[in-house]
């Protein structure tokens, strides 16, 4: 996340601001994305209560890195429908550290992101952004899709599981608390093991299917993907989300993304159904349909 120079230098950024801005300092701190100190509400076992329906507001699903506004597919038919907004990189340092030889595949992904061909099992996944096909988005992408998700957190040792339920494609993750089990087979949403470090929920995710992408720009990974997430409550209405992404086959070093998650505050807000499979059947299987229709 890009921060003003003054804030980057100080160990406690509020100090120089306070001396310069006086009573406006705390408001200015909010304006540049700094949260005042916060002690979260807790469940009976003493851990912060992360239960809630959350959603990000970044446009990272279009592109994790800096991106300008862009038209969607077929703007000559759809106008602004399907267009994407501009957005600033959520990658710490701005750029994803690809291995030079791995960039070619990102480019190819981007060029073929809106194509599909499921006529041959061997190349079933070769073309097309999985999000476009209504495939499960993987981690961390699920957390910065423009759709809400619910964190379901119990309390006590009798149930060592948390759930994250995503509205998009009804994707679900089970987080196994304090587990040492390894992923049995690859999964689209990976294999998540959680633990608490102070007031931060740390989730270690492995066992990914290699076919998920990070965004619509074609950013991708291999089967070696390893993600470590950190969820920290920073206000009654925000979690700060960080993910460290590691994949030695594709990147030269681990890299981090960071953005807030916002609590849905609409009265009686709930996830609704977004089972998008029927929206993509004609795209995927239309070539096999009997024509003309009998």
């Amino acid at each position: 996340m890009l921060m003003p120079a003054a804030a980057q230098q100080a160990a406690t950024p509020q100090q120089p601001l306070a001396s310069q801005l006086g009573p406006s300092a705390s408001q200015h701190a909010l304006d540049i994305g700094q949260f005042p100190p916060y002690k979260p509400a807790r469940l009976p076992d003493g851990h912060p209560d992360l239960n809630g329906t959350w959603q990000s507001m970044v446009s990272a699903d279009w592109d994790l890195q800096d991106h300008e506004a862009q038209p969607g597919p077929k703007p000559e038919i759809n106008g602004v429908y399907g267009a994407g907004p501009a957005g600033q990189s959520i990658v710490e340092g701005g750029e994803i550290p690809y291995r030079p030889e791995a960039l070619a595949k990102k480019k190819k992904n981007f060029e073929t992101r809106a194509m599909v061909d499921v006529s041959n099992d061997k190349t079933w996944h070769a073309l097309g952004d999985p999000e476009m096909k209504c495939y499960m988005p993987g981690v961390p992408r699920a957390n910065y899709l423009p759709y809400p998700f619910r964190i379901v957190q119990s309390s006590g040792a009798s149930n060592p599981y948390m759930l994250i339920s995503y509205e998009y494609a009804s994707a679900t993750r089970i987080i196994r608390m304090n587990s040492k089990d390894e992923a049995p087979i690859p999964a689209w949403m990976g294999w998540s093991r959680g633990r608490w470090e102070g007031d931060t929920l740390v989730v270690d995710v492995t066992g990914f299917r290699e076919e998920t992408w990070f965004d619509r720009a074609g950013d991708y990974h291999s089967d070696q993907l390893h993600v470590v997430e950190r969820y920290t409550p920073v206000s009654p209405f925000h979690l700060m989300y960080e993910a460290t992404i590691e994949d030695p086959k594709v990147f030269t070093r681990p890299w981090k993304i960071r953005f807030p998650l916002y609590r849905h505050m609409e009265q009686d807000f709930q996830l609704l159904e977004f089972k998008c499979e029927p929206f993509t059947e004609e795209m995927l299987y239309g070539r096999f349909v009997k024509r003309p229709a009998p």
Partner: protein
Amino acid sequence: MTHRFAATLGIPAMVIAIGSLSLLMSQSPQTARKPATEPQRKSATSPALGSSEAPALKPSSFRTPWGDPDLQGVWNDATSTPLQRPTGVASKDILNDAEAEEFQDQLANNLSRNRRDGGSEVDVNRAYNEHWMDSRRLKVTADHRTSLIVDPPDGKIPPLVPISAERQKEHDERAAALARFNAGMPNTYLDFDLPIRCVVRTDMPPYMPIIYNNDFQIVQSPGYVVIAPEMIHSTRIIPLDGRPHIGKNLHEWLGDSRGHWDGNTLVLETTNFRPDTNIFQEADPATFRLTERFTRVDARTINYEYTVEDPHTWTRPWTVRIPWTRIDPAEQMYEYACYEDNYDVSHFLGGAREREKRGEVAQPIPHLPSVQ
């Protein structure tokens, strides 16, 4: 009669316990919802709905740290007990131990994937041997009932009422699509049912056991019960705070559920089913009513019971009871991605077009050979 009969034969206490629990249960008063400017959040300091007036419970009863009955865990509902009581055992709703073992063995034999009788027309449907199937599916329920239906007493689905011409047309279209599918000559992906299309599978309530992956993860948080069936990776997030259902113009394949505690029993009412969907037993989505009840019976058992009602389909409501068995930590639920790798659809459709190119004309097959 049932309970006395069961007690005489020493049938496991579960059957008796279920009857006793229903007597113990009392209506817990519903706390009026406070109008709020932000979503109500149950924290450690605010009491769970009704908990301050819950009946006194045994020390061994299962409770979450915030006082709700605890249904959490990974549960499995597989069984060989049929939904309806087979003809020939009209008055026998419960079998004694010897009868139950015989019944189970015969069902297991009928269901066995390793049988070789019946010729190839039957054998082709017996692919995947037992290891690909739920390990508990060859067992009858512990209470030795001869049907999962407990009401009406004859263990059968009640008589059907005549359906409207419109529903009959939909029924016939589905039957015709199935016949094309059975012949291996579907016209379009819409000739497949929702499970084959990987939209919903066993997660559309009410829950019924099938041949594999009969698993459910339940996680609770203050004010919610969340049920995550294995197929197809969805969650039912059920608020317990008495909020109204979603608006009548919103419809979902899994319906919209609201829950409350009736003593130790979670009671769910589910509405807002999609009108265009083939829901449970081809009932009418507009008038179908579903009530489910979950009761933790002991450390490893939940009693799952549901009542369905639809005056446009059945002459009376009927009730089904299926025990759920806890399987974690030894066994776990795993991701069931479905749509992502559903080669079947392109195999079926592509294969049909290929056969047509070769001049094959397959006759639609309304019913495939009866086999497990």
